[in-house]
């Protein structure tokens, strides 16, 4: 039951954040310097035509009224339609988001598994040759721009070796093997810097954990050191890693926008950038809101996982 209460508390707490996200997204989009009316009709259109189109698009109402209309529609799942393609924004976002999220999900999995593994290796032999090599690799990984790594991966594994396609994307629903082949390189490009963050965090928190009193106590009880390491210390050290994971997911979603352009993948990134350039308000607002919602959901899941991992934060 405490977990249910925790879930309810966290859920309630994320509502104001979501409202703040919607405000930021809407008003920032409207503050952009690009006028969609000019974009659609061109510079030469008459002012009467422009006024008529602005009226049609609902841009003449007060911003507050437009925000309220957008928000109430959004709550019902309707994000309006694109000023340019007239396609439903919700439908397009679902398609594009599934592409981006599948890349980010694979990247997260890779980064966590490899990062945690390397962190354990380093933490159990601090100061050793292996640890020094790993630490050097990790701090270099932190500095790698993921889109540049993506370019190198595409060039080497895509073009030179031909192991993976250098461009394009196959949705997971269409062909699993094809999806796996197209998702690998972008996911690796995202996973390297994020994995470096996880490895670094894991290493330092595991070293700290191994210094705790209960580790000595477990040794004094004759418990096998491997068991102490893997079932006690690692579990304790993973708790602080959780919040780092949620931060990195947000960052990976952003980095994915850029990596997608390298691989010519039609994800949320290209949709967003296109919307910004053209002043396609519904598309921009919808896509940004969707990203905010995804991150808030990830944070929520992490909070619950935190409650599962750390009994102290569960409400009594």
């Amino acid at each position: 039951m405490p977990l249910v209460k925790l879930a309810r508390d966290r859920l309630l707490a994320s509502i104001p954040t979501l409202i703040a996200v919607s405000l930021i997204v809407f008003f920032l989009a409207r503050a952009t310097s690009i006028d969609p009316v000019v974009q659609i009709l061109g510079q030469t259109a008459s002012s009467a035509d422009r006024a008529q189109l602005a009226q049609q698009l609902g841009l003449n109402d007060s911003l507050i009224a437009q925000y309220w209309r957008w928000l109430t529609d959004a709550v019902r799942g309707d994000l309006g339609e694109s000023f340019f393609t007239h396609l439903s924004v919700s439908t397009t976002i679902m398609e594009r988001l599934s592409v981006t999220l599948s890349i980010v999900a694979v990247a997260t999995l890779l980064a966590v598994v490899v990062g945690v593994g390397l962190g354990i290796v380093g933490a159990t032999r601090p100061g050793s040759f292996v640890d020094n090599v790993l630490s050097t690799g990790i701090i270099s990984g932190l500095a790698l721009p993921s889109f540049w790594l993506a370019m190198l991966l595409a060039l080497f594994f895509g073009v030179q070796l031909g192991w993976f396609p250098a461009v394009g994307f196959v949705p997971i629903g269409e062909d699993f093997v094809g999806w796996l082949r197209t998702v690998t390189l972008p996911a690796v490009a995202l996973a390297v810097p994020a994995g470096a963050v996880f490895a670094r965090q894991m290493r330092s928190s595991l070293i700290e954990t191994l210094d705790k009193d209960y580790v000595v106590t477990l040794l004094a009880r004759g418990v096998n050191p491997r068991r102490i390491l893997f079932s006690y210390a690692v579990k304790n050290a993973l708790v602080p890693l959780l919040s780092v994971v949620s931060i990195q997911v947000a960052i990976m979603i952003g980095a994915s926008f850029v990596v997608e352009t390298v691989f010519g993948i039609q994800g949320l990134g290209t949709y967003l950038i296109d919307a910004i350039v053209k002043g396609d308000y519904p598309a921009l607002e919808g896509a940004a809101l969707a990203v905010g919602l995804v991150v808030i959901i990830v944070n929520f899941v992490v909070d619950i996982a935190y409650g599962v991992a750390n009994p102290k934060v569960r409400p009594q």
Partner: protein
Amino acid sequence: MSNPVRPTTQAVDISATRASAAPRRTVHRILSSRKAVISGAIILGLIVIAIAAPLIAPYDPLAPDPSNALSGPTAAHWLGTDDIGRDTLSRLIYGIRTSLIASFEAVIIAVVLGVGLGLLIGYASGLADRIGMRVADAFQALPPILLALVLASVIGTGLVNAMVGVGIIFAVSFFRITRGEVLVQRELLYVKAARVGGFRLRAILFREILPNIAPTLVVQGAIALGMALLVEAMLGFLGVGQETTQVSWGTMLNAAQQYQLLQPVMTIAPGLAITAVVLLFNLLGDGINESIGNDRNRSGRAKAWFVRSGAPSTSRPPAVVETTAASDPATLAVSNLSVVTGGEGGTELVSAVSFEVRRGETVALVGESGCGKSMTAKALMGLLPPGVAVSEGSVRVGGVELVGADSRTLRDVRGNRIGMIFQDSISSLSPVHTIGRQLSDAVRAHKRVSRKEARRSAAELLTLVGVPNAEARLSDYPHQFSGGMAQRVGIAAALAGDPDVLIADEPTTALDVTIQARVLDLLMELRDRLGLAVVLITHDLGVVADSADRVAVMYAGQVVEYGEVGSVFARPQHPYTQALLDASPGVGSRVEEMATIPGSVPPPWEWSSGCRFADRCAFASRACSTAVPLVNGVRCVRADELQLRGLRREGASSDSTT
């Protein structure tokens, strides 16, 4: 892409920083960090190159030369040329300008904005604070690159504008750091304010905060520089903030994309440059962080236990001692045990300690902190920290020599033949595992039983140590136990392997006075019921008087007096024993005369070759400067001539434990 700018990961523990607030010392320490100085120096070098770019760059970075387009590295163009024949090296050098301007611009905006808002909102608190935090949360729910793209479009194109946007985004983490510190200082000041009276609260508040967060800001700022550079590169790559007159590494990569196959140098060079500069900023941040004492990665207690196995825990092969009658498993015989740190010829922490405990007996080790009591206990278990080792002597349990034993033997001995109880009962339990799990693992460390059986044993153990409702409490976590109950759990776990010897290292020190006696009674009852040999480490002489058979008084790593509790307390022969008795509130029964021992225990490297207590001893004479052996249980050259005052009556101790 990593984002250490956001708090949590590499975020510096503000409370840890506080101690190092003295600015001059901080600067000095940063300058003594090789990592910080070298990376800082290279960054300064880059700044010089950026300023002197027109003098250094071999070509005009914007001048096209179509006849030389897409050239590889040649003598004329060291890094080749791009698609319209511009020199890559020159563009790279000019790119440093753009990168550094962009990074510093964003970070300066972030710091000014973030710290300013943090001070204001932290000070205002209430509704403003709640709204501020929600907005901060919302900003962090949106990826930095998304916000940067939108803000770039809001503020207007051009790199300078785009980086204003990045500065606003990065301000969020500086806002959080500052606000957190304001809240901490408020708390402190509200307590102080009552005394200060009408003093200007606001002035103090702001004066206190900036020096406290300065080191954190510097570290986070250095890392934010790297982050800003990465965002700048992404924006350039995406074509946002592109200006024809400015050369940026990101835009170079954008151009390279179409010609990757024809001229890979175009792709490789700018990417390496970005990575290198971000790395420099990160190293600078790391170096500063380590030098101000926030590095938690430098520790090595784990090393010895989890990687190597089978390494002997002594620097010398075990001395062969003739077997005495001590074959009863419940006999612990310690003879001549010395512990050193720093290897052969290092500093001695424990010097030639000897004592013996048999079944049903309790031997107490007493003395002030820093006398080597706990170090002796750890040596018995083979649990000395890395760098510390037994240099001499013997520890035998039921005839088995532990000094020099391999890790396999030690593991069998721990828990199975010797159990140990620690001072801090709660922190001796893993916070994220149930009591049942921890007890079962202790049981299963020595008995091949199923999980279910182990759990049943765990419940029996809990009942044995008097935890009510044992079965149900197995699913509870340590934080749900009181200190006294947690110590009972600790005792249960120590008994899980049916040990013959129990070492209790200050088992009641951390507990409420009312609970102490009960836990101690439990220990004594278990000793009698299970026939344990108990080594009790304590500084509470009342406890010793109540429960121990013999006492070893330790001072500065040595046993200075050893004997039956009754006679030692009634007629102490060593001045230190008398001083301890005088300083004990309950035992001496003369509370109004309660004395403290002047001075303090010297650190190991200052231990003299003569009597180590001489400096603090009221009876010291010239004879005390030569080495003193332990004769008839006392280590004092003047033992025979001194008339020391003991306890008037033994029963007087009872008030300290009830």
